């Protein structure tokens, strides 16, 4: 263990009120512990106390008429095997969960941790972005809702304060027929390594046309991003190979990746186009409008 990670105190609050009170008292000096698969790797030296959210009742997947609500401490494995997420539009989230890390990591890692760690390469946020999910966050002044698309700011930055806690993720039910897809490229497709590029897509269809498309990409910008130009190219048309290729090329022009140990900027741009194409093909297949 790295010697500088030595929090002096461990708290396991039994109520949300107590948890927020602890966060308010300690501020930046407190770290929220959920699955630990990011926190115990990063071992931040400034963490003076740990606040474990295991006893807050935040581990659940609830279906209701307006969609699905997922507790922040729900494990990635539970999401991957949940019957509530085994039909559209939720397949993108299930598939992203099954692509995250390894089975052992998935037993431990939580959806809230995957969001709040705010990695530009995180898997679940992309799925939640195309699903139009919102986050319920609690602080000393009460609860607030924030759209997942407005949560990420710069690298690792996020729209949540030190005295706030993510409680749940709310996914609205879909109106109309939907097809979704999650695609992830990594050095070895079953390895623990994070994405070189990852993509989530969703198409909403009426009759044989795509009426709305949503595309989100990861590991190609300082935050997860939407490919708005590519989305616009798909509207109101029946997708075919040419349209999908055009959208994929447009998406690869919208990204701004870096060179790093996992891949070069050039390679990431090329792969962004490939993954967007595959994601759109699978989305339209799952929508029942591909191939023509």
């Amino acid at each position, binding site marked *: *263990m*790295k010697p500088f*990670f*030595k*929090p*002096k*105190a*461990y708290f*396991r609050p039994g109520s949300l009120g107590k948890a927020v009170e602890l966060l308010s008292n300690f501020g930046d000096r407190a770290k929220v*512990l959920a699955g*630990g*698969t990011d926190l*115990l*790797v990063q071992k931040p030296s400034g963490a003076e*106390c*740990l606040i*474990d959210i*295991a006893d807050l009742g935040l581990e659940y997947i609830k279906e209701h008429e307006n969609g699905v609500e997922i507790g922040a401490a729900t494990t990635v*494995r539970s999401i991957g095997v949940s019957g509530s997420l085994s039909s559209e539009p939720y397949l993108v989230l299930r598939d992203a969960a099954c692509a995250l*890390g*390894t*089975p*052992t*990591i998935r*037993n*431990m890692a939580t959806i809230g941790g995957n969001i709040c760690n705010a990695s530009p390469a995180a898997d679940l946020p992309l799925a939640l972005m195309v699903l139009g999910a919102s986050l319920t966050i609690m602080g000393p002044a009460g609860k607030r809702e924030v759209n997942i698309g407005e949560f990420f700011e710069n690298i690792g930055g996020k729209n949540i304060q030190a005295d706030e806690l993510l409680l749940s993720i709310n996914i609205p039910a879909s109106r109309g027929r939907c097809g979704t897809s999650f695609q992830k490229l990594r050095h070895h497709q*079953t*390895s*623990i390594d994070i994405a070189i590029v990852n993509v989530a897509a969703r198409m909403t269809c009426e009759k044989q046309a795509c009426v709305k498309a949503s595309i989100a990409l990861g590991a190609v910008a300082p935050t997860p991003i939407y490919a708005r130009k590519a989305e616009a190219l798909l509207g109101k048309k029946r997708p075919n190979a040419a349209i999908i290729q055009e959208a994929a090329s447009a998406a690869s022009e919208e990204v701004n990746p870096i060179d790093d140990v996992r891949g070069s900027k050039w390679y990431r741009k090329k792969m962004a186009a490939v993954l967007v194409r595959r994601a759109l093909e699978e989305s339209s297949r799952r929508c029942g409008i591909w191939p023509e």
Partner: protein
Amino acid sequence: MARVNIKIKVNGKLQELGVEAHETLLDTLRERLGLLAAKYGCGDGECGACTVLVEGNATLSCLTLAAHVDGKDIETIEGLEQGSHLHPLQESFVEQGAIQCGYCTPGMIMSAKALLDKDADPSEEKVRRAISNNLCRCTGYEKPVKAILEAARRMRGEK
């Protein structure tokens, strides 16, 4: 430094311990309980040498705080042997020669046990996925995969 009092069941035996706030389950097992099978490898969750079962699920004990598993049931490879009889997974690892240096073996067997406890007849692909968080740097994966499938057959009572 404040201690955290925890009660955990390790291989069926209740343990009441005072642990440090930052103490990992791996350190508790090794340093306090003298259970040396789970190993420290990478410390980052990549190698799986520290894998133990928490409530039956394969868990990386180097990334798990001891305080976090208060009240939970922990299983390590030391708990697999029944009297003088090895567990079928241990037997078949020995017979298949699925061990070389042995550093990854306890973690790999515990990952395999988590799988076989839930799925008595897994496909080879499922076996490979179940041990995908266990790195072996000497003998590779062919023999461990064979050994796990063989153990599954034995546990089903097939010859």
